[in-house]
């Protein structure tokens, strides 16, 4: 018998089964669990993703270097947002300390790649395949150290504790001048070098911005696919169970401690990598930037993008990052808004107000974020010509 639930009788040969073929034009007729769990399970989805990736690959040819730099930064932030979504969205553990893990990654990467004997600490390991995983692992180690707190605390208490982490980190980074260069001064960021070839200057492959853009895009795709894979696996299901109700999850046999530690570890790994890449794009690291504001920005990305969705994290990061250049064009369009910081209202104030307004509006009208909007639109057409 093929049925594992029934007893087996040894001298009955197993029935020859098929080769788990997909049947044309019938996406719901799944003949194996692999098809059931496929990331892109309909032709429309495969086509849509292919078009999106092709579009992203075409952008460096079309856009100016300045816009590419903004997008590269957005992609790096998106990796961090995916990380926060893993711990907060998928596993349901509120974390305000994301900026701390980003800082750990950024400084690990910077210290490893900088030439030794300079003003700040340096080890001269400029190869990206060394410092990027190292940045992630250092942050993950920090995350794993913090995680035991999460197994004892829930909700608000956890939020406050992780908040403390940000302040602790801010203080340490401001004081440890040998590593960070000190507040207001900062230090050189990590230098990306791939097999001896520097990726952060103009070369035969294109300008610095074009090369960096493609690097960030490739890494974002890699991290995004890895996160989707994690979410659909046994680990992902355990995260979801813990998010929905940790006591219930424990009752059905999900080891809480192990999975909470894992969630913090993976999330911090993403944050660390994002930190390393983010500083590469801007070129320098300043300890004051890893403040509570950065944590809030990540939370805004997750909330505006969509909780517990990878595509939502990316959308949220892009949305927040592209808001900035958009508001910068306001003074030209609206006479009331000034580009001068000494006048009121100026663009920076408008920007801050917009952040707050958007978070409030999304939480009130579409708590599932941009991804929720998309799901709503998709459901409307998917259920056509009925409503359910």
């Amino acid at each position, binding site marked *: 018998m093929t049925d594992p639930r029934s007893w087996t009788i040894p001298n*009955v040969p197993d029935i020859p089964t098929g080769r788990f073929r997909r049947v044309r034009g019938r996406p719901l007729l799944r003949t194996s669990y692999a098809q059931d769990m496929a990331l892109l399970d309909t032709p429309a989805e495969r086509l849509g993703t292919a078009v999106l990736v092709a579009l992203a690959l075409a952008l460096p040819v079309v856009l100016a270097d300045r816009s590419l730099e903004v997008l590269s930064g957005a992609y790096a932030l998106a990796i961090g947002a995916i990380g926060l979504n893993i711990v907060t969205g998928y596993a349901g553990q509120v974390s305000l300390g994301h900026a701390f893990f980003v800082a750990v990654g950024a400084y690990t990467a910077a210290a490893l790649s900088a030439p030794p004997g300079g003003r700040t600490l340096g080890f001269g390991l400029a190869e990206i395949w060394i410092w990027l995983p190292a940045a992630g692992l250092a942050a993950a180690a920090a995350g794993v150290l913090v995680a035991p707190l999460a197994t004892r605390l829930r909700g608000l208490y956890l939020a406050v504790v992780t908040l403390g982490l940000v302040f602790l980190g801010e203080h340490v980074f401001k004081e440890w001048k040998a590593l960070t260069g000190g507040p207001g001064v900062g230090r050189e960021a990590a230098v990306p070098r791939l097999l001896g070839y520097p990726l952060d200057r103009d070369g035969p492959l294109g300008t610095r911005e074009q090369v960096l853009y493609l690097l960030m895009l490739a890494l974002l795709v890699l991290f995004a696919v890895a996160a989707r894979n994690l979410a659909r696996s046994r680990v992902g299901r355990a995260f979801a169970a813990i998010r929905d109700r940790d006591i219930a999850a424990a009752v059905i046999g999900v080891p809480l401690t192990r999975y909470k530690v894992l969630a913090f570890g993976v999330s911090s790994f993403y944050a660390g990598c994002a930190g390393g890449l983010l500083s590469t794009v801007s070129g320098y690291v300043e300890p004051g930037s890893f403040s509570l504001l950065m944590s809030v920005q990540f939370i805004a990305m997750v909330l505006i993008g969509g909780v517990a969705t990878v595509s939502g994290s990316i959308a949220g990061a892009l949305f927040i990052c592209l808001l900035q250049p958009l508001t910068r064009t306001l003074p030209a369009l609206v006479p009331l808004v000034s580009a001068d910081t000494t006048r009121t209202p100026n663009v920076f104030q408008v920007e801050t107000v917009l952040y707050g307004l958007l978070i409030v509006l999304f939480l009130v009208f579409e708590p599932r974020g941009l991804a929720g909007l998309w799901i709503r639109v998709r459901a409307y057409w998917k259920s056509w010509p009925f*409503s359910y």
Partner: protein
Amino acid sequence: MTAADATATGTTTTIVTRVRERARSAPGAVAMRHKDLGVWREITWAGYWDRAELVAHALLALGVEPGDRVAVHSENRPEWLYADLGTVAVRGVTVGLYPTDPAAEVAYLLADSGARILIAEDQEQADKALEVLDRCPDLRHVVYVEPRGIRGRYADPRLMGWPELLALGAGHRAEHPGAVAQRMAGAGPGDVMTLIYTSGTTGPPKGVMLTVGNVEFAVETLVTGGGFTWPPPSERDLLLSYLPLCHVAERAFTVWFNAASGAQVNFAESIDTVQANLREVQPTILFGVPRIWEKTLAQIDIRRASATPVKRAVTGFWLRVADRLGDTLARTGGRHTPATRLAYAAGWVCCYRALRERFGLRHVRYAASGAAPVAPAVLKFFMGIGVPMHELYGMSENTAIATANRPGRVRLGTVGEPHPGVELRIDEATGEILTRHPGTFAGYWGRPEATAAVLDPDGWLRTGDVGELVDGTHLRITDRLKDVIITAGGKNVAPSEIENALKASPYVKEAVVVGDRRPYLVALVGIEPDTVGEWARRRGIPYTTYRDLSQRPETRELVQGVVDAVNARLARAEQVKRFAFLPKELDHEDGELTATQKVRRAAVVKLFEDLVEGMYGR
């Protein structure tokens, strides 16, 4: 080719030799799929034949002789087909039992057929058999497929698990490798291969003996000759098997189509999941009884009514267009004109594609309704939304071969034209339809006098249906001969036409028209609880039970509207003057319906005599 091979080796072609041939020529191709733990598991032709052969060996080991009966009491699943093929391979006779049959019926069928072995699906079916074992002296073994609840609890020595049966077969195959082939070689076209019990709307069910020759004629006509579908079914076609396999129609579409054409059979999980399974499988050939089509129509109605205003308006518009398309198609026999093609293309983009997808009709290239009369309006609706719908006519006694509406030559309200090779005539005196062809059954099991009553010595089968030829080609069936009502005014009325017109409404599930030797016609009406419930909910009408819902004055008004609309199309003598609601849903177990959900008219009228008499003011 199969047939040529068979003649070369001197073996009669049966469905078993056809499956064996496929296992040789295309061992890795998919023969069937069944859903297990959320995934459609594929079974290849090699796997199918392997299992069928094992069952055949096991039956030999259990001492089954040619002509012995093997009963199968199960929902549709691969084991049903293994058992059927295994039985036919050892020249036994398969007897199918309806999964809904209550114990009393099981006792009757097992005793009447004299089955030696029963293959029961699970504890529920095994319990029914064990309850009535003492009334079935011929029954030696009860094989259960699902061990849950039986294994380790029941001690009856006649019980045997499915793996034990296979192990027995494997042992026998190792000892006597050629035994099944040897037994198969002895088969002849005159061998009875299955007993199909009539539904028994009047009197106890009778076992219709179908021989190898009958079934081969049916297969040649339907599959090789493309009697229903054109182009004929092939390996690329997908079928959904969900109606009881003991019925001749589903057996033809599942077992015979599969074996003869290689069409892939997909087994629905159960009758309750048919909607969901249809959506997954999206079959290319779909056979349904009228109830299924009526229910789909009602579902579309409910879903549309509860949609958002925009969707409701758009769908409403395109359904009105579909209605007009249906009118045109009904006029042209199912062939599109350039204008309808254009209108349909626009509607396909806006509505029909999605609508058909939702109900699993997206890829249907041939849909059929049969086994009971259906209102033409229902068929017209499906033609309008682009499902090529055809009404068929046949019965167990003629191996389901009589007439069919051919693609492109559809005439609504008729059951189509006789198949090639089928002789059909109408008895001048009674108007009864008679058929004659090589598929005519060998007789009722153990009832020569009943056989003689329907089978003329010169081979004509009396179908018991009254009908007439329209334009000399298409057959129109009026009603069952026994059901025709003669009112006190002397008018002949066919109740099924009125009943089907009523049942075409989404709110009416059952309608029984009464009026034999009465001054006027009355009807017992059963409401469709889903649709009427939804309707009441939208109107804010509170109700508790089925009975309560039927007795609301608002419900009476609603159904009165349906009755009035039907009456408006009928002659005075055929109008339903009064109606009463059935206080309960009719049920197979209470003896009001047959296993195929046909109303046992006499039983219902007798049971609700007071209601009927009440309508005549007595």
